[in-house]
């Protein structure tokens, strides 16, 4: 199935009455949205959500089960406290964030009950919340990497609080290099990163031999961080 730009769109199967409910996994995944340039999604998000708002939403929508103190949000996003307080109050006033007073401090969390929570979280997962974060973290290894993508529950939109971020990196890099690049991001993600590393030759030979792991990888939804499905074709 292709859309008007010729990009292939993969429709995830709808089961039972789930399509009537605001289920997170119900979306079309367009594999080529951000393949035209490393910064395209950043420019796009800057246009939609100016500066600080993007950082705040990117952090909180990605970990909706965590209620964070303003001080923690300031540290993890680098937004100065004054602006941060204003931003958080505005976002809470329209209901996308929940404000939770705790003693003499205040905590904020994403509001899963908001009518467009699922869609907004999806936008941030594909852009500055997750994809850009991983892309920036992998940038020092840039030329060595053919392709990198998120798979598993974070790519399917079915992640729960304890879900890892499964990241597959295909290129001439070692597991230790990838772990070194990605581990510093765990705190901001609020999740453990589980990297899988292989060369393009290993990927191709394992695909050809019907390896269980790689076959599964090919079938699952993927969120491309570097490269596109064409690079691993």
């Amino acid at each position, binding site marked *: 199935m292709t859309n008007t730009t010729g990009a292939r769109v993969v429709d995830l199967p709808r089961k039972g009455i789930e399509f009537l409910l605001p289920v997170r996994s119900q979306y079309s995944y367009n594999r080529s949205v951000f393949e035209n340039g490393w910064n395209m999604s950043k420019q796009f998000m800057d246009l939609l959500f100016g500066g600080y708002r993007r950082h705040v939403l990117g952090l909180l929508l990605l970990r909706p089960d965590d209620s964070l103190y303003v001080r923690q949000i300031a540290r993890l996003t680098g937004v100065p406290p004054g602006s941060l307080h204003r931003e958080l109050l505005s976002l809470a006033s329209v209901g996308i964030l929940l404000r939770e007073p705790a003693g003499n401090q205040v905590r904020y969390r994403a509001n899963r009950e908001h009518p467009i929570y699922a869609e907004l979280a999806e936008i941030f997962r594909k852009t500055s919340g997750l994809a850009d974060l991983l892309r920036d973290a992998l940038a020092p290894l840039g030329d060595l990497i053919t392709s990198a993508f998120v798979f598993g529950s974070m790519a399917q939109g079915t992640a729960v609080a304890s879900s*890892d971020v499964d990241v597959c990196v295909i290129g001439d890099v*070692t*597991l*230790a290099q990838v*772990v*070194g690049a990605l*581990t510093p991001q765990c705190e901001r993600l609020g999740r*453990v*990163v*589980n*990297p*899988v*590393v*292989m060369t393009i030759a*290993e990927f191709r030979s*394992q695909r050809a031999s019907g*390896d*269980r*792991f*790689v076959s*599964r990888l090919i079938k699952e939804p993927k969120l491309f961080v570097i490269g596109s499905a064409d690079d691993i074709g």
Partner: protein
Amino acid sequence: MTLDNLQSLPKTIGIDAQRVVVLDVLRNKRNLSDYTGKPVDHGSLASCMSEAERLLEDTSTWLALHHPQLMPL
């Protein structure tokens, strides 16, 4: 924070902290495979074995140097 055997390796036998991070990632893979039954990829398995061998070697070297009486005969 409590230190388990793995995390305390830089303090005990003085291995590089970055290697412990890699060992932690590998341990997490073992746990995921145990709990979810999902297959592990060949690269992770190979890394797991080579890291384990390297750690065994380093531990033996350290033991021989600091506590030779504890070395297996």
